């Protein structure tokens, strides 16, 4: 072949055909919604979050996902599903497959603390089927109990010094009436209310105030199984500790950024994460109130709404874990107690 022609072929191949081929390969193989694969790009929420952030599938349809991050490490999980969370690394593609068997609106979200607005990084998967109402549409307990999540709820009593202990309470040998030991009672009453009720019991007349608090701890322990505490601890560590702090004192690594958040200033709210070691606030709160705050989120603060993500059992496990910050880590009953 003529050298000049060879040169032209070479330049055409390297400078035009090669890149064009790359793009064509991409175009030919690009997964689109409704096709075989759906590619989801993750960016920090201030830069756009997930793209796409809305996906629609039919119930039972196998969803093939190609997940990639355009900036930092993210995680991908689908709330209220058995999909196991995966890491989404910058510039790498993680493939995942999921089948959603129940119709409804599922929320997918980031599981890695990628920034102060990490919790805003969410998207939805609409699963079309015969039923359009997802499980989360059920009325939460705080609403049926008429609890105002915004109302102050300070306890008018508090333990004198040491945290109440269910072990000490059990060793007192004082029988606790069965009505205190039901899940319904536990969820609807605060430790402070329970202390007053137990204090009024004839069997507790001889007890000191501190010993009555130990009975309260015993009541709470009867509603906290080790497996629930373990699950709650896992959820707390991955979803809550960054703001509320590892020890629950409201001093997580993101707390300062939240305090400076524009959203909080706009709403004229205290954006500081709740301090679970604050006895006055915690002992005046009912488990239903805590669950309500978890489900609904803190309006105008950085507290996300976990209702569309966590299952009912997960929210109660998380609530059970939160009481550790008042009653100590060993405050559990047997796994069969509930």
């Amino acid at each position, binding site marked *: 072949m003529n050298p*000049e022609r060879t*040169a032209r072929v070479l330049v055409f*191949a390297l*400078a035009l055909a*090669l*890149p064009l081929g790359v793009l064509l390969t991409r175009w030919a193989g690009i997964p689109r919604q409704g096709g075989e694969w759906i590619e989801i790009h993750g960016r920090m929420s201030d830069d756009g979050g997930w793209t796409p952030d809305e996906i629609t599938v039919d119930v039972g349809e196998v969803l093939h996902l190609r997940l990639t991050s*355009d900036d930092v490490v993210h995680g991908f999980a689908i709330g209220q599903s058995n999909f196991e969370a995966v890491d989404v690394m910058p*510039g*790498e*593609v993680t493939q995942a497959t999921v089948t959603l068997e129940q119709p409804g609106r599922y929320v997918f979200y980031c599981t890695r603390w990628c920034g102060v607005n990490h919790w805003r990084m969410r998207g939805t998967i609409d699963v079309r089927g015969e039923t359009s109402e997802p499980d989360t549409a059920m009325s939460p307990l705080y609403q049926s109990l008429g609890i105002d999540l915004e109302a102050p709820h300070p306890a008018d009593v508090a333990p004198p010094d040491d945290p109440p202990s269910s072990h000490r309470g059990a060793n007192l040998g004082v029988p606790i009436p069965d009505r205190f030991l039901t899940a319904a009672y536990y969820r609807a009453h605060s430790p402070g209310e329970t202390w007053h009720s137990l204090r009024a019991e004839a069997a507790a007349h001889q007890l000191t105030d501190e010993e009555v608090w130990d009975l309260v701890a015993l009541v709470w322990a009867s509603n906290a199984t080790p497996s629930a505490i373990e699950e709650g601890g896992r959820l707390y560590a991955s979803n809550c500790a960054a703001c509320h702090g590892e020890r629950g004192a409201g001093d997580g690594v993101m707390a300062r950024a939240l305090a400076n958040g524009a959203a909080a200033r706009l709403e004229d709210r205290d954006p500081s994460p709740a301090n679970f070691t604050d006895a006055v606030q915690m002992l005046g709160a009912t488990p239903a109130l805590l669950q309500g705050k978890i489900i609904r989120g803190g309006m105008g603060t950085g507290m996300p709404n976990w209702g569309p993500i966590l299952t009912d059992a997960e929210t109660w496990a998380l609530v059970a874990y939160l009481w550790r910050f008042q009653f100590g880590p060993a405050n559990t009953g047997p796994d069969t107690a509930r």
Partner: protein
Amino acid sequence: MTRRDLTHFRLIKTVLHRRGPQFALTALALGGFVLAIVSGLAGTPVGSRNFGIVAVWIAWWAVLMLVAVPLFGRGWCSICPIPAPGDWLQRGALLQPATRGLGLGRRWPRATRNMWLQNAAFAVLALFSVVILTQPIVTAVVLLALLFLAVGASLIFERRAFCRYLCPVGGFVGLYSQLAPVELRVKDRAVCAADRQKSCYTGNAAGCGCPWLVYPGALEKNTYCGLCLECLRTCPHDNIAVNWRSVGADLLQPRGRRLDEAFKALIMLGSAIVYAAVMLGPWGTLKSAAYNIGSGTWLIYALGFLAFVFVVLPGAFLFTVHAGRKLARSAVPLRRAFVHFAYALIPLGLAAWVAFTLSFVFANLSYVWPVLSDPMGWGWDLVGTAGDSWTPYLTQVVPALQTGVLLGGLLWSGVTVRRIALEGRSQHPVFPLTLPVMAFCLVITLGLLGLLVG
């Protein structure tokens, strides 16, 4: 060391004479260049997984600063893909030395036949460098802009005007090519003087006239010779040599020293200091300012950068030169002394850039393997290395290498200062004349050691 003509080796001469090998390398580089643009525009925006960023700012930069420039001077320019399309359009051919091409063939404006535009172009790119180096799309836009600029220059002006007067990389490559142990020169100037055709400059059937607008017969420095080897092909007397020579031989050539080149030496040295401070220093505020382009802090950074490389550092150097003249009671005009002594900063400047390059190249070289397998970050695994994790290389050795390079650069600059002072058999005492300049080099070296090695 005497010069040794490498064209005496038959194999080397054959390879250099033929256009094929050079063209093949250029075409290959062009393929990589276009792929870098495509990956920047369509690939992942994650720099460490994008071919454009990794190939250009890690692989290419490492080859350029650690191998090509120190050993071959403008060797890269001889296969650079940026001017190639414009060059081919201008010549109307890719391989053959054809003469019917496109272009107006105008002469470059006389007022800018110097390095000032290259100085400005480099400074402008440097202002945006933190973003250019990390964001693939910005890299792609810059590469495209350079390509269009090069093609446009080729269609309007004669020969390789872009390379000679505009290319921001070509400016410093030319400056540092004076240190390289390779040069292209004529074997016998008398042969050139006797030749009336001057085919090396005007071109003939065997090749083009010098694309770099250089007459090889008068060539005394590497600065503006692009090693395109056209003169090797066109010379009817086989009078062109590609010599292996002493390193830095051009620095001892007093003729042709110019203010624009002197400033280039200072700008490059100042830029290396700023880059080291921004990218490797402990000042997060400075890093943020350099990154947040368009913000008020970036504006302050930009003004500070320009002031440092164009005013503060040259001003400090001018002061040291002035102090040396005073100490030595020298009658050499200040401007002349400033220009001549600035050439002594060239070894230190190259050492600074080599040391700076060492600081990140080996740490980031392992990004090359995943990108080879998945150049676009689309989840491909072409050669099975897409999953290779980041592994810094030679972490224990790099600080020692950097120290050695910087101290070597200081020593080389010190020796060059003294030799420049001795030029022309001046009567003024050398030691007081050179002392402030050597102190200047020492301070710069210590500063760079602090920033790069810690």
